[in-house]
């Protein structure tokens, strides 16, 4: 199971890299979003999959829980990537409006300004 999910996260990285290398800003933004999902998947896999119950306090035996820490890490990092994606979306939208292009090739900038 862990191997499969690791491969899946590798596939996501491939997709993300492909999108990141394209010329349209929107694709780059999507690429970064997919990148962060790959990292989240990797973290939860690294913590070990399906080894116990949901880690919520109750009457059950404490040793039967899965490690709650990776889940907390992912929650934090999802929130962060949510915020970062919102910021970069807004910036690229403004850039598109102001500069009139979403082609990164044209956003390279000239030497003389």
């Amino acid at each position, binding site marked *: 199971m862990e191997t499969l999910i690791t491969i899946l996260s590798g596939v996501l990285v491939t997709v993300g890299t492909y999108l*990141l290398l394209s010329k349209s*800003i929107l694709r*780059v933004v999507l690429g*970064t979003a997919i*990148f*962060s999902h790959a*990292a*989240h998947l*990797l*973290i939860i*896999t*690294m*913590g070990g999959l399906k080894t116990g119950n949901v880690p919520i306090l109750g009457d059950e035996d404490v040793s039967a829980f899965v*490690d709650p*820490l*990776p889940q907390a*890490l992912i929650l*934090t*990092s999802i929130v*962060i990537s949510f*915020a*970062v994606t919102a*910021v*970069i979306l807004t*910036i*690229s939208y*403004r*850039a598109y409006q*102001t*500069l009139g292009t979403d082609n*990164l090739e044209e*956003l390279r*900038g000239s030497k003389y*300004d």
Partner: protein
Amino acid sequence: MTNLIVLPMALPIIIGIILIFLRPYIKTQRAITVIGLLTTIGISGYILQSVYTDGIMRLDFGGWQPPFGILFVADSFSAILVLVATIVTLICTIYAFSSIGREMENMYFYSFVNFLLAGVNGSFLTGDIFNLYVNFEIMLLASYVLIVLGGKKMQLRESIKYVVINIISSWFFLVGIAYLYAQLGTLNMAHISQLISESGQTPLLTITSLVFLVVFALKSGLLLYFWLPGSYSAPPTAVAALFGGLLTKVGIYSMIRVFTLIFYHETQITHLAIGILAGATLIAGSIGAVAYKDIRQIVAYNVIIAVGFILVGLAVMTQEAFEGSIYYLMHDMIAKSLLFLLAGTMITVTGEKRFDNMSGLIRNYPAFGWMFFIVMLSLAGVPPLSGFIGKVLVGQGAIEAGSFILLALAFISSIFVLYSLLRIFLNSFWGETIISFEDEIPLRKGWMVSFGLLTILMFVLGLGAEYFAPYVADAAYTLMNPQVYIDAVLND
């Protein structure tokens, strides 16, 4: 009371939030920011003093004992950097009062400066590697907003690259944390270090350490600096000075922390890599600094040279070299902010970006010109200014460790720093005056105050090196002996 050490992070956050409610009242915003930063400076000074007298301080959030909870740890190294970072922020904010313009002040500028400082201070103080990532993100999110605030074409163009490159490096950070967690099952840096020294640094851990090396190299601009000159040229002067003074330093701090506390067993791989990268950075930075005529580019390449220089200290790993690196880190935060402020002001008063289009500024602004001269000497390492002691100590450490190539590169780079800045000084301050006395833009009082304060700080750091020596020695001692840090966190 140990709760004190959260204040350098929590106070700027709460002030930043309060400022959002005070949006229309710019004067109140300024006053609150200054008062808050002064308080933070006082608290950081007190923390530094009590760390020196009573040893490393620790705060377990919510009472969760390490290694289970998140914690803040203040050792001398962190406390020194927190103090200097807050002082630099205060001075850059004073500069911003009279330069940033009402429009941006109205767009929550001071809130984001506070959030940026909170992220920086949090990164310095945290003792948990995931928390380090979170603090990095706080700092970066604030910096994304600050770099684009104002919405000029160049800012928008450069900020996209800046944001994307930082997202990628944060992604590498997450991947590194995932691998580390898979192998050790803990995130507390002291606990990680203890587990590694018990079980040995396996090849897999060394590979993981290289992932972290890539992350911090991207953040600090160690050879992977290609994003830096562009992004630091785009924002307004006050923001550029903040970035130049603080952001790369956080990357350097993290690299020093991680490679002295956690991954210090396989120095022939990791520290060799750092040494090679530092050497290459010094060479490339020097070439860049003399290649351009745009003042802001030259200044940005000077930042890169300093990064290489400080990390020479990490690569050679001796007590003297660490002391030198810490001195130089303090000096560089102050001097680079001043350099960015001066360069930005030169561009403001002349309206030109290239130094060969300016000349004779010293007639119009004598004090300003001589301050540029002083900062140039300080960066080149002329005594009694602040850069001197750091250069000497790093050099001494490199001789002790026998790294003569790094030694040579570090000192040759100083000559390049001197040359690149002297070129600006000679071309733009001497020669025929291009600005007639009628249409010269007067330097505002706030500008001169911030330049003056930073110049005084450089003298204080240079002449008072003796006074700071015990603190710096203590910080370097903790870096050389990670067991001190581990004991303070895990067994007390």
